[in-house]
């Protein structure tokens, strides 16, 4: 976390005018990639993630197949133009790690045992990055999986929280992410009350940490509702 002299919360408002507990304007659209079995485009402010799902389909080469379960693969990728300085193509160590924990965030929501020898592929492209990209990606992936008709125990909601100028804030944008005291991305199955992704970077007391986790879980309800709305919109058309 870098330091800045700039105040990032002034008179209770964040630099984009939000209150600490506010989530940025969300856009969620399902079924945006005709070739894919499921897809979704999700924005939180200027952070935009596009997800597509292919599968369950037979896994090749066959020696990778598991006879008692299907597998999930998850590829998180940042477009070269999604960030200020052009990102080099090809997976960075950061992208490899995020792909791993994101896959683990989605697996508990799926019934992979019902699809032995298959794979479900989730590809996520970050088109624009302005903070909280991995959780935005998880929302897109969750919708794309639902759109693909992959059976799910629950939708998976992604949302971040943090500490900024001593205040708990929800859904960090890029500049907040750079200068905040802490950043906690979380994935959550709201109706199951299950946390499936949890990371943290920063400097917090144990009690602050626990409080932020709870505040994020609380705020995730709004994201869940937006996901449901997006799915309804697609299927009511």
């Amino acid at each position, binding site marked *: 976390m870098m330091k800045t002299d700039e105040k990032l919360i002034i008179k209770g408002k964040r630099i984009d005018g939000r209150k600490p507990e506010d989530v940025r304007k969300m856009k969620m659209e399902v079924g*945006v*990639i*005709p*070739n*894919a079995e499921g*897809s979704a485009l999700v924005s939180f402010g*200027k952070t*935009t993630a*596009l*997800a*597509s799902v*292919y599968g369950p*389909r037979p896994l090749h080469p066959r020696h990778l197949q598991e006879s008692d379960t299907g597998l999930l693969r998850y*590829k998180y990728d940042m*477009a*070269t*133009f*999604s*960030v*200020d*300085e*052009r990102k080099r*193509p*090809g997976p960075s160590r950061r992208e490899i790690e995020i792909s791993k924990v994101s896959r683990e965030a989605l697996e508990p929501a799926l019934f992979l045992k019902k699809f032995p020898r298959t794979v479900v*592929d989730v*590809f996520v*492209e970050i*088109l*624009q*990055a*302005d903070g909280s990209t991995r959780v935005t990606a998880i929302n897109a992936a969750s919708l794309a999986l639902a759109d693909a008709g992959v059976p799910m125990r629950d939708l998976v909601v992604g949302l971040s929280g943090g500490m900024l100028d001593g205040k708990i804030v929800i859904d960090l944008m890029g500049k907040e992410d750079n200068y905040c005291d802490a950043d906690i991305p979380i994935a959550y199955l709201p109706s199951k009350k299950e946390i499936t992704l949890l990371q943290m970077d920063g400097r917090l007391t144990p009690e602050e940490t626990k409080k932020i986790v709870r505040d994020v879980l609380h705020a995730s309800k709004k994201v869940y509702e937006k996901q449901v709305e997006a799915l309804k919109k697609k299927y009511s058309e």
Partner: protein
Amino acid sequence: MKSNYIIKLLEKNERLDGRKLDEFREITIEKNPIERAEGSARVKMGKTDIIVGVKLELGTPYPDTPDAGVLRTGAEFNPMAHPEFETGPPGEDATEVARVIDRGIRESETIKVEELCIEEGEKVWMVYVDAYPINHDGNLIDAGSLASLVALNSTRMPKLEEDDKINREELKGSLPINHQPITVTVGKVNGKFLVDPTFEEEKVLETKLSIAVTEEDTVVSMQKSGNGPLSDDDVDKMIDVAVKKSKEIRKLISNGKKTTKSKAKANKSGKSKDGS
């Protein structure tokens, strides 16, 4: 079987989606969908959907052009865009798409690269053009070239601070542009020529010729792709088609609207699957 049906229809100068042989699918152009990029565009041709982003970075010029900026064009076959695409570094087809897009821009001198020199032989602007197919339903070269052109036209120059730090919050003008090349790919099968093939049509084509043409009707690049042969007369006809269609498509980008319908488009029938 579908292939046979496509060929059968072509014999009657008809296509699966009701288009004429020399008719593009509906083209939708979105300028600057990626606010954080210096320039960007999203182009849909029917169900083919591609995003191009432009980034500007500092770099060193090539030794043989010490006073000119550098163009770098990339394209990947994103596995998101088609069930047959795989993760991994670009293969020969993706490499060809990137290089054909690149040549259209480079040979037409779309960018005034000589205005991108900061310090001769030492420091120039690098212009990175990266194409991300979102949905592949054929004709990635034309869609990607068009998106690249629109993205370059929409590109704003970041400010260069005194310490050579790039300030992308203050933009000071547009990327200097010379020309407006449009690439038109003409496919051939059974003696028929058609433009803007869908994915299924591409499978039955014997060969394709991608031709980039500027607003002065100058041909700046050609690329034959696919192992079917062409005669010299075929080449003549394909060039003529490309010159004609390039004019139509160029109008789409010059009319200033953010989203445009191809004037060449004429929805003819309810069977249309790919054109709406």
